[in-house]
């Protein structure tokens, strides 16, 4: 069995860590690192019987993830101090939001940039306040800068000059040129306040955004991690609220995201063993390609299935922009090398 399959089975709880031969861990650890899931696996197997060196490595990973989580939440606090005095409300997204809300998928989850969502009317002020507070532009290329401002769902990325951390300021969750236009105002309006005082998306919107991020806005790089997020979110929300799946379906319909949400649910079932309610259990012919793409990683952590990866890369652009615009964009990018 391939290492990435073993990784998925361990996360899903289908396979007992004690059954692995010592050298099986090479590939599992390599694949988990490549998929940014090593600390997640370390949490999942915190109580499992492991070879001593694996147990030690996993303990390192859990400790490092705890530090990274504190640093990510500190970054959110820095954004709050820059924006709150000016009355600019923002909603945390993705990893920082999961950590702020204390959700189970945040355990060991790598958090890269700080992602926040602000109302479109506030985007100019938010940018000005962040720059006054020490963030700087990192896209010096005028084409890239203009592209972000005209067509993307976020400002050009900013990095803080002292802390070297990136912030992505979104005004919606998919590019403006995307075939789907989620209702960002509804997302902001229905956001909820987590224990630490930060606003996060309400449960159904959080799952919608997670599915959109996984399936509608990229080439599925890091997809296993994003799918793990979706699996944990929906499992925990459904456990706390019996009506969750119904709310999720209604909310997905509002945002135009039913297809990605349903596909994410099916993939979570097929890979992580998610229990879905009746009505969600269809199979679709394309799902197999997604599974193959998500598992396209060999025992040395290298990407495999090059043609399939390319196909998903092209698909991501196809979803993100209309054909003529795509042609222009690729032409410009190609000329710039």
């Amino acid at each position: 069995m391939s290492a990435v399959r073993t990784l998925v089975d361990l996360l899903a709880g289908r396979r007992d860590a004690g059954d692995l031969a010592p050298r099986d861990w090479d590939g599992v650890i390599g694949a988990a690192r490549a998929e940014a899931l090593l600390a997640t696996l370390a949490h999942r197997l915190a109580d499992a019987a492991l070879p001593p060196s694996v147990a030690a490595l996993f303990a390192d990973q859990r400790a490092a993830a705890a530090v990274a989580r504190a640093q990510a939440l500190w970054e959110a606090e820095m954004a709050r101090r820059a924006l709150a005095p000016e009355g600019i409300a923002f909603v945390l997204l993705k990893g920082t939001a999961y950590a702020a809300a204390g959700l189970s998928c945040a355990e060991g989850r790598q958090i890269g940039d700080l992602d926040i969502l602000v109302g479109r009317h506030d985007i100019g002020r938010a940018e000005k306040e962040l720059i006054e507070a020490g963030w700087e532009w990192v896209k010096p290329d005028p084409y890239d800068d203009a592209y972000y401002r005209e067509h993307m769902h976020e400002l050009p990325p900013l990095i803080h000059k002292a802390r070297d951390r990136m912030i992505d300021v979104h005004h919606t969750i998919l590019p403006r040129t995307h075939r789907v236009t989620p209702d960002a105002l509804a997302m902001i309006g229905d956001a909820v306040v987590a224990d630490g005082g930060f606003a996060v998306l309400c449960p159904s919107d959080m799952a919608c955004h997670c599915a959109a991020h996984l399936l509608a806005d990229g080439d599925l790089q890091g997809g296993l991690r994003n799918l793990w997020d979706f699996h944990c979110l929906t499992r925990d929300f459904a456990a706390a609220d019996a009506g969750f799946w119904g709310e999720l379906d209604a909310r997905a319909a509002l945002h135009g995201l039913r297809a990605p949400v349903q596909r994410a649910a099916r993939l979570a079932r097929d890979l992580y063993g998610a229990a879905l309610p009746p009505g969600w259990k269809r199979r679709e012919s394309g799902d197999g390609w997604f599974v193959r793409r998500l598992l396209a990683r060999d025992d040395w952590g290298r990407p495999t299935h090059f043609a399939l990866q390319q196909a998903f890369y092209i698909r991501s652009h196809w979803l993100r922009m209309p054909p003529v615009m795509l042609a222009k964009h690729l032409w410009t990018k190609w000329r710039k090398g």
Partner: protein
Amino acid sequence: MRHSTRIAVGPVQFRIGSDWRAPIDALDRLYAGYPKDMARPADATVRLFAARPWRRWLRPSVHIGGDFIVPDALPLPLSMGLLAAEMGMNLQVALGWRRHMLLHASAVARDGRAVILSGESGSGKSTLAALLGEGAWRLMGDEFTLIEPVSGDALGFPRAVSLKNAAIAEMAARVDPARLGPLLAGTPKGDIRHLIPRADAIAAMHEPARPALILFPRFGGAAAIEPMAPGEVFVRLTEASTNYVALGEAGFAALARLVRETPAFGISYPDSAAGMALVEQLWAEAVR
């Protein structure tokens, strides 16, 4: 991958895969005297690979990959495959290791106490440590020194010493030729030849040592000793650490304790003999 081997240096078990046999054979020769545990899972993976299949044979060039990569790192010719492997191993430790605070520093130990030598490339820290390691000292490592956050002890990382340029002849004159790897001439870092540490240093690689002295060597100029204030030592070591920030509070506590408890000096020296004499002199004062 087609060819692979496993190497344990200090606390890190590496798995190294390669599209070519030569770098793996060279590693196996260099690390033949290191303890091998073939059943132990790898902490870190290094990959040496051809960017395109035909580049395995046609002007073969070795790209360095693994768990962590440097996006725009230039490939090396196959004749420098051993250097590529060494760089790949260093990279995985520098970017991936979290159990200890990593200092980009060489170290030697005696009687369970360590002298840590920190400095830029060219400061002579590797050569000085290698020379001391041929005498009364145990070579702990020429590249990384690991600080255990809870105990404050130093742990060694005695990989094969990377001798550069003039240091090659200086060491070759003193050691058994069997302990030297092949000469890698004209690499981006100059001429390189690896020195296998003494068997007793390899055997003792898991033994911790209490930091006794931190030195910042500078090759060139008259012999001089300059006491260094804790603030400067702290800042210099944060710059010499590849994971200080990632370790958060534990890193701060470990480094603050190291600086507080360990006397530190800058030393300048015109030649290796003078450098070694300065280390011995400061050591005698520190352990008195």
